């Protein structure tokens, strides 16, 4: 318990910094943010009202304290165009993003880990070369290029899946696959490298010398040790999938937080932009910290200083 509390305390400065930086975003708008948001057609009264609403006529430290105070009550402000509370918008969009990222994670695991194992077991032969080429190619394909390519192949040339939107259950397949591929490439490389390391260890030689079948040696002895570093990567990358979701959701018209962020940027609805950035960053920090924590629990050699 003390360990957990210490762990939580160590994350506080980072969370504070994240809050400060997202707060300052609105103040990075060149010129008058109210004018940029409302456009030139707005009346002076409209501007004054928004300025007062956002607290922009207060000194900066007071604005920041207000911002923190409101966030503590779950109040993210509201959209300057539709006046809908941002907390409501987020609540509508977050489940879709979670569904997408979790499915992408599962797909990436199902692709990357077996491929990495096959590559390691056929070191320097053609399955290994194939897996390496696959990983290399996918890691050079950003989501906004892989997505359209998958659309072209699986929705247009072979009309198996919906192009975009989220009307049917099958709509999630292409965005999840797009989001998964980069991570699958990384997992292939990691699993391969890690298993190759472990296969050279003494305990693997011992297991073989005992006369165990190769299948048992690999699956029961080597793989167990090899997957520990892979688990960490999965945890750390789960957070990065959130950043990938911004582009992927935009490509496929998937109504998650990422698309909300991009829509808010297009409409210059900066309070919404701010809230989306904050939520994604906090989720990322939380997932990373939980991974560290879980790793320390799984591996007694790891201790925090």
């Amino acid at each position, binding site marked *: 318990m003390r360990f957990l509390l210490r762990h939580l305390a160590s994350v506080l400065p980072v969370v504070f910094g994240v809050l400060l930086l997202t707060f300052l975003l609105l103040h990075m*708008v060149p010129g008058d943010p109210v004018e940029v948001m409302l456009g030139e057609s707005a009346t002076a009264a409209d501007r004054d009202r928004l300025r007062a609403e956002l607290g922009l006529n207060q000194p900066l430290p007071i604005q920041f304290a207000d911002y923190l105070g409101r966030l503590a009550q779950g109040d993210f402000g509201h959209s300057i165009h539709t006046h809908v509370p941002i907390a409501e918008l987020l609540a509508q969009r977050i489940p879709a993003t979670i569904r997408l990222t979790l499915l992408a994670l599962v797909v990436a695991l199902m692709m990357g880990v077996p491929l990495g194992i096959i590559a390691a077991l056929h070191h320097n032969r053609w399955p290994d070369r194939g897996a390496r080429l696959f990983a290399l190619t996918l890691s050079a394909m*950003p989501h906004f290029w892989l997505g359209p390519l998958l659309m072209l192949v699986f929705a247009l040339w072979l009309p198996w899946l919906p192009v975009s939107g989220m009307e049917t259950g099958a709509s999630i397949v292409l965005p999840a696959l797009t989001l998964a591929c980069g991570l699958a490439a990384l997992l292939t490389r990691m699993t391969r490298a890690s298993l190759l390391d472990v296969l050279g260890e003494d305990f693997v030689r011992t297991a073989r010398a005992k006369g165990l079948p190769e299948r048992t040696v690999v699956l029961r002895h080597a793989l167990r040790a090899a997957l520990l570093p892979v688990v960490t990567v999965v945890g750390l990358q789960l957070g990065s999938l959130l950043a990938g979701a*911004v582009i992927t959701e935009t490509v496929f018209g998937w109504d998650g937080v990422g698309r909300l962020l991009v829509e808010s940027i297009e409409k210059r609805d900066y309070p919404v932009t701010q809230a989306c950035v904050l939520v994604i960053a906090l989720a990322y920090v939380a997932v990373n910290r939980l991974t560290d924590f879980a790793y320390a629990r799984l591996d007694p050699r790891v201790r925090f200083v």
Partner: protein
Amino acid sequence: MKSWSLVIPLFWVVAAAVAPLLGLQPDVIHLEHILRTPDWDAWLGSDDLGRDILARLLAGARVSLTVAMTVTVVAGVAGTLLGLVSGYFGGWLDRLLMRVTDVFQAFPGILLAIAFAAVLGPGLGNLILALCLTSWVGYARLTRAQALSLRARQHVEAARALGGSPWYVMRRHVLPLLAAPLIVEATYGIAGLVVAEASLSFLGLGIQPPHASWGAMLRDGVRYLLVAPHYVLAAGLSLMSLVLAVNVLGDGLRDAWDVRT
């Protein structure tokens, strides 16, 4: 080292450099050629406004490489200097810098660059600024970690004992040993920035119409996927060839110089 990993980036650099001399018209609209498929007059076809896709690809390469190089130089120099001073001197400056980089790294991937570009407004200058503001962190962390361990090396101690000023010791005895890891980092960095520039342009945050960029071409191309797949394919394959080659070049340099990443 694989030679194609050097040839492809060089091809794009040369193509981007000579493109303005070829008399191409990347921004000229030809409504009679809308979404023309590739033929002998337009090798890669035309886009949704009848503009020549090859000409626009070269113009886009120019934008992409200009952004990647500028940001790498600016953020690389700034990050390296900060990391060097921080790691070498330590103290409150070091603690402050580490806190700041922790916060920057709390934003996943390109999210912070998107946020900065969104509030700064669209345009090439703001795009470069947004990427500089986020890219220095990696260089600072790398240099700081290296400087911290190099500080304890005997040749550095000797130089200090002989009365070398901190700046002299850093410049002559620490920085040269950092060259290899920094060049490897910058190589991967360039690939990352090409993707980042395209991502921001894809979201409409980069260079504005009518000017071409690979990300914007991909965004427009997606809308005509069904009728003109050559549009998306041309932009996507160009981007992929450059990123793939630069990444492989980074791998080659890392292995050749035995840099641990």
